[in-house]
């Protein structure tokens, strides 16, 4: 595309935006609202995912070691478990450490009673196992159950909780995708309506262009650029709002949650921004191109 043509297309697009300035601004703002919901839906989904990951990692599996197994045998078993595909960490809890943990949870006479067992410790050794992916919890559990009688005498796991968390996470993901698709569709429809107004106002011009020998693309470009201007402007506003608003929002949520907030870490704003900003800006461009292309198609058949 030559410089003259590009200049002509941009001038025509700018004229189109300026001629319907009120409609263009209101369209861009409506797109902004959609994109704002989109970017915050995404950050909500990303945080929920992050929380669940933390919870899943904390709610691991405990495998109790047979007393008859030697320390060297227990170490071999630890390595064998660590080699399982979904296992993140395997920590051996010695009999002494188990007693300490139990004593720390109690106070007064109960604590004294537990500590009095130090010379005749009845607690077993165990492995605390954390997983890479909560969704594969059952597979790992089955692998550990297979070790019962081979150095392990019992395996404890809160399968129901992990299952519920994984299900909740999947529901959040599906809802997020649905919200993204719905808002994307709405944005396209909004831009289509704005461009339709411009196209309608320039029906005669388009007709003249066709008779003078303009190609469809020559006619389309200014409208597409107009759609891109509206879409990009509409997407830029929520990106800026997110850049400056996410931090204070997280702080607000943390203070509302009080001490409960210390249990979980929130996603870093920059982590979300580096992914979401280019996606939102690209989405603005895409809905702009799609909206204008759909609205002009009908008028090109001359």
């Amino acid at each position, binding site marked *: 595309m*030559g410089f*003259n*043509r590009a200049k*002509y297309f941009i001038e025509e697009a700018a*004229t189109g935006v300026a001629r319907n300035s009120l409609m263009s601004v209101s369209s861009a703002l409506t797109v902004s609202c959609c994109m704002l919901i989109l970017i915050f839906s995404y950050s909500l989904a990303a945080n929920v995912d992050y929380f669940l990951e933390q919870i899943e990692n904390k709610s691991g599996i405990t495998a109790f070691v047979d007393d008859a197994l030697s320390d060297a045998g227990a170490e071999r078993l630890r390595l064998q478990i660590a080699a399982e595909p979904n296992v993140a960490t395997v920590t051996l809890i010695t009999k002494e450490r188990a007693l300490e943990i139990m004593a720390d949870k109690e106070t007064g006479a109960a604590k004294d009673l537990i500590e009095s067992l130090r010379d005749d410790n009845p607690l077993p050794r165990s492995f605390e196992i954390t997983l890479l992916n909560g969704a594969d919890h059952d597979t790992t559990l089955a692998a550990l159950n297979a070790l019962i009688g081979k150095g392990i005498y019992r395996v404890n796991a809160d399968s129901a909780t992990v299952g519920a968390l994984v299900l909740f996470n999947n529901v959040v993901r599906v809802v997020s995708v649905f919200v993204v698709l719905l808002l994307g569709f709405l944005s396209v429809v909004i831009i289509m309506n704005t461009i339709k107004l411009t196209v309608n106002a320039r029906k*005669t*011009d388009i*007709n*003249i*262009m*066709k*008779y*003078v*020998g*303009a*190609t*469809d693309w*020559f006619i389309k470009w200014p409208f597409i650029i107009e759609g891109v201007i509206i879409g990009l402007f509409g997407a830029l506003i929520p990106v800026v709002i997110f850049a400056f608003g996410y931090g204070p929002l997280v702080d607000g949520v943390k203070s509302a949650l009080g001490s409960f907030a210390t249990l979980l870490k929130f996603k870093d704003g920059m982590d979300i921004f580096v992914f979401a900003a280019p996606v939102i800006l690209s989405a603005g461009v895409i809905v702009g191109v799609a909206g204008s292309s759909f609205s002009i198609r009908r008028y090109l058949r*001359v």
Partner: protein
Amino acid sequence: MIEFVNCSKVYEDNGAVGFKDVSLRIGEGEFVFVVGPSGSGKSSVIRVILKEEELTGGRLIIDEEDATALGRAEIPYLRRKMGVVFQDFRLRQNKTVFENVAFAMQIVGASYREIRRNVPMALTMVGLSRKSKAYPNQLSGGEQQRTALARAIVNRPPILICDEPTGNLDPETAWEIMSLLDDINRRGTTVVVATHAWDIVDGMKKRVIALKNGAVVRDAARGGYSEQLW
């Protein structure tokens, strides 16, 4: 230059016959009037030449190219071989005279320099050099048609198609426009004019193709419009 070979046009939506089994040839550099009463088929002939409508039968050759076989994407390039002038001028109202004419050159990708050189030449040729900054609503009907004419010839197309070019003009202005068309024809451009203006057709003594009920009823090398001459 333009050749109809057993051409027919039947409108699919209402079954109306535009023209049927028409064969005619318009040579390079000719000046041709296409005349006939309303519904005779002359508008259909013009629309088919401009590829606004597709033939339902026969073959149309324009500038040695089979226009019947052209795909949608190739139509703009065929139209660039033809300048077009309409009865209602069809000017872009928010553009100046200069911009309206320059627009035809922008479409074919002309450089800024070419536009600066050729547009004033075309405006001078139609006698509008002093009105280049005016908008269409500041011009008389004759001046608007001159602008449309300048736009039609600025890319120097080999063919000029005029559909009732004097229909909205007073007789004096109409003759001025026809005189310009005659000048353009003398410079080698093939000119095809569909018109009802019998006085102009009679006065100019050019080739006349008369249509009636969708058929060519007369093709005279130096004809007139009136019924008794048919």
